[in-house]
């Protein structure tokens, strides 16, 4: 058998931050012990309250933070910072403003990762940018605009275009749709699903919103206090997960309407 190595492979990963408080050093465990495998083309949803360790785990997966304990393999090998320069890893944040320089035209921002990658030909870059914009459903004329001249949905599409232009093999979406309005949110969620089907990258979709997470993910990990309390197929989050904490999250998106529970009938 010749199965490809998983994109992300974490075994017993733990992360401890050192915190200096009034000359006293204390250690804070952000992630206690996590085993996690994400295969090529798979999206893992990561849900949990703030402080549960979601972002710390994402930083480990992106090679930005070395785990204090355990092992982390990227595509079957120990993480080599070189893959970052190749553009194999990408992130999309909650606020596209953080990804796009307000003083650069959008086209320049999107082409930048290609330049870092070493693609010298200006015309080649321009073509790749144009193709990428078409993929995220933006008009090619928008390359000459500044981020401030775009709507929130257009800006997030731009940020996604910039994240995907190097054809990364792993993408983190960190609250990527949380700041968007309902109908724009569904456009971007559909876009993420379509692009993944086309490009087959592995992804981690971090959100506090279970409804959005289960829509784009194949599996969902529920995180609390630095560890996974439940990892299950996304389908399970449509009819009721097991762990009490997952069920509390599930209850926020399922249930009766207030009219039926009213006690003050007119």
């Amino acid at each position, binding site marked *: 058998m010749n199965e490809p190595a998983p994109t992300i492979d974490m075994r017993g990963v733990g992360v401890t931050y050192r915190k200096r408080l009034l000359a006293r050093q204390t250690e804070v465990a952000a992630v206690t012990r996590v085993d996690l495998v994400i295969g090529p083309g798979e999206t893992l949803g990561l849900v949990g309250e703030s402080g549960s360790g979601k972002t710390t785990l994402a930083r480990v997966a992106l090679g930005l933070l070395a785990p204090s304990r355990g092992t982390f393999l990227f595509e079957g090998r120990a993480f080599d910072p070189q893959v970052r320069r190749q553009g194999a890893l990408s992130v999309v944040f909650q606020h596209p403003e953080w990804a796009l320089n307000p003083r650069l035209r959008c086209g320049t921002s999107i082409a930048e990762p290609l330049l870092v990658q070493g693609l010298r030909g200006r015309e080649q870059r321009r073509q790749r940018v144009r193709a990428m914009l078409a993929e995220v459903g933006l008009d090619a004329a928008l390359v000459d605009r500044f981020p401030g001249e775009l709507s929130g949905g257009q800006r997030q599409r731009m940020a996604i275009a910039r994240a995907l232009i190097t054809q990364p093999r792993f993408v983190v979406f960190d609250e990527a749709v949380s700041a968007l309005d309902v*109908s724009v949110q*569904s456009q971007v969620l559909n876009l993420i699903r379509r692009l993944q089907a086309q490009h087959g990258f592995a992804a981690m979709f971090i959100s506090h919103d279970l409804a959005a997470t289960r*829509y784009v993910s194949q599996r969902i990990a529920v995180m609390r206090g630095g560890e996974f309390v439940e990892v299950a197929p996304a389908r399970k989050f449509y009819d009721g997960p097991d762990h009490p904490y997952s069920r509390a999250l599930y209850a926020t998106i399922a249930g*009766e*309407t207030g009219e039926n529970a009213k006690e003050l009938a007119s």
Partner: protein
Amino acid sequence: MSAVVAVSNLVVSYGMDDGEVFAVDGVDLDVVPGESVGIVGESGSGKSTLGMAIGRLLAPNARFLGGEIRVARRSILSCPAAELRQVRRDSLGFVYQNPMSALDPTLRVGRQVALAIGERAGPAEIEAVLGRVGLPDPARVAAGFAHELSGGMAQRVVIALAIARNPAVLIADEPTASLDASIQGVILDLLAALRRDTGASLILLSHDLRMVARRCERLLVMYGGRVVESGPSGRVFHHPRHPYTRALIRAAAGNEGPGGMLEPIPGVPPVLRRSSPDCAFAERCEFAQPRCRQERPAVHRVDGREVACHYATSELIRADRASAAPA
């Protein structure tokens, strides 16, 4: 029962550099004592302008172009400043989206509660109010500053300020938007419990149709500064009649089944440069007819709710309504 909040035919615009933008374009809203009303809409729908207008708490460039707002029988738009202050203090309680910007960072929490209670409140009264919103150890919270609180605790303090004088109406504008998912339910439970205990009315503003439908007895769906559909929340949510309400339900994650697809609403919401002479949603509506672009729809009473659509009663829209929202 007479309404505690009565808004009739309200029109509000904002003066911008390049002209007027209409935020509220003819809205009627009656809230009876003890009732919970949810107002749903995307950003730019006018819901926050409507909510804040009830306390006349709008930005200086806002202009009231028409209509009337009465709170506890007093006219908000024409009463003198002293009377307006009294209505705000005694009848209305506001809960804002971001508790950290709603609290004064330079005053101890207890001092802010004392100001909200008024009339030289002592420590016992201050702690009683903080205790009512479920804060453990109210004395310690009262002695602290806003930055020492977690988001959930800060929002409880904001709610304590809002209920300090037992207002007749609580107006909560996206009260959980800046909070963790795990605390959102707790804060909404708290608002529901306070409403039950005090008999206050609750006006809940949010973009989250599902959440509002669960939490409120009655729903108003806003689009382009108008109320396009209103009625009992179960009926509106499970059997929407206005094309916009249906489109909104189909677009929101959480309403689809496993493996199902979300259907985004094509196009973008309008920026109203004038009171809309036609149906503001016509541009994006899958059922739009020529009439929708020529004539402003009147409000029709259909099936136990009010719908502002020319075709509210027609088979055109009723035909596939069963597919709109899964139960």
